[in-house]
């Protein structure tokens, strides 16, 4: 009799949805660096640390709504790349804007990041699990940025953090060129 291979794990269901959602922000380097930069930038001052992690997901959810509804949001890849550049430079140059300006800037970028996640959601094995997965990953990335930002308490650490910001900006630049088709 013809035998077909049997797979114990078929890539469907809750676990697959959770895993793919969790990996989405982590395997996308453009998402990853921008999320870490948000956490790093949060170290600009205490209010920013407190406000950004609460406001960011809610604004990102608006972008996610656009994504799942099939709305065509233009320049998504370009804006995600620009978010890396802008946030990286803000960290590298130690820019300290008013809180409302920081929240507005991060909020605009959050819409585009949320949109990219939302586009993947309808195809997920378990959409709710996918949503929970990418939320957990994004929280952890913010937390990484906040924890790395603790280094700013020491002079050498502050230099390292600013260098990290510059690196993030450079990575964002690469993705911007890639989104524009100038590099492959």
């Amino acid at each position, binding site marked *: 009799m013809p035998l077909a291979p049997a797979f114990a794990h078929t890539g469907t269901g*809750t676990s697959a949805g*959770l895993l793919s959602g969790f990996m989405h922000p982590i395997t996308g380097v453009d998402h990853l660096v921008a999320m870490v930069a948000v956490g790093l930038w949060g170290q600009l001052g205490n209010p920013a*640390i*407190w406000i950004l*992690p*609460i*406001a*960011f*997901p*809610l604004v*990102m*959810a*608006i972008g*996610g*709504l656009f*994504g*799942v*509804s*099939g709305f065509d949001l233009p320049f998504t890849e370009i804006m995600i790349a620009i978010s890396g550049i802008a946030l990286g430079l803000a960290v590298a140059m130690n820019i300290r804007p008013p809180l409302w300006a920081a929240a507005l800037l991060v909020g605009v970028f959050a819409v585009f990041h*949320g949109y990219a*996640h*939302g586009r993947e*959601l*309808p195809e997920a094995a*378990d*959409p*709710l*699990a996918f*949503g*929970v997965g990418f*939320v957990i990953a*994004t*929280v952890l990335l913010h937390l990484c940025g906040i924890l790395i930002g603790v280094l700013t308490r020491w002079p050498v650490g502050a230099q390292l953090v600013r260098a990290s910001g510059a690196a993030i900006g450079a990575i964002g630049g690469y993705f911007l060129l890639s989104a524009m088709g100038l590099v492959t």
Partner: protein
Amino acid sequence: MKKETLIRAIAAALALVSVPASADAHLINTTLGDFYGGVLYPLSGPDDVVPWFALAILASIQDPRNARWLLFVFPVALVGGALLSVVTPALFISPAWNLAVIVVTGLAVAAAAKLPFPVFLGLGTLIALLHGYHNGQAMTQDTDRLLFICGVAAVGYVFVTLFTALAISFRQGGREWRLIALRASGSWVAAVGVIMIGLQLRTAVPM
């Protein structure tokens, strides 16, 4: 050990080994399987766990006198919802209700809102009724309903109690960032709920 004692021990061991009985690693054969089925069913996906988590965090923010009532009302309402699924199994409950309570609970946590007692208890009761009904629908004709429903109620009680206690303990450090961390978790729960509502609307209205 004396020689005689050793011989007796070996003889007893041999006697036990030579009369094997069936060994049940899992308690299905003891008819308690459906209880564990009820315990595990809500934990097998995020549908129940996410709103329960948010509700527990919300309880930790409320006045302790109000929050304590949840520990009594929540499992009772879970049982009520599950029994309702037995009585009226074909009742249509829009998935939007489940998502709406996720968003409302998440937003309340994000805002660190101290809700009026009836509103807080009503929210907890609504979540438990919805989830009790949803979990009750998983029962088949072969399921021991009493055990399954007891399992669902037990895990709901333990989950909400433990996470409320953990959140209260976490906050007792006194640092401001601890409350912010809890509020951020509510914000993320609300965000997931908002996106899922969008997906639900898309599914309901084909584009």
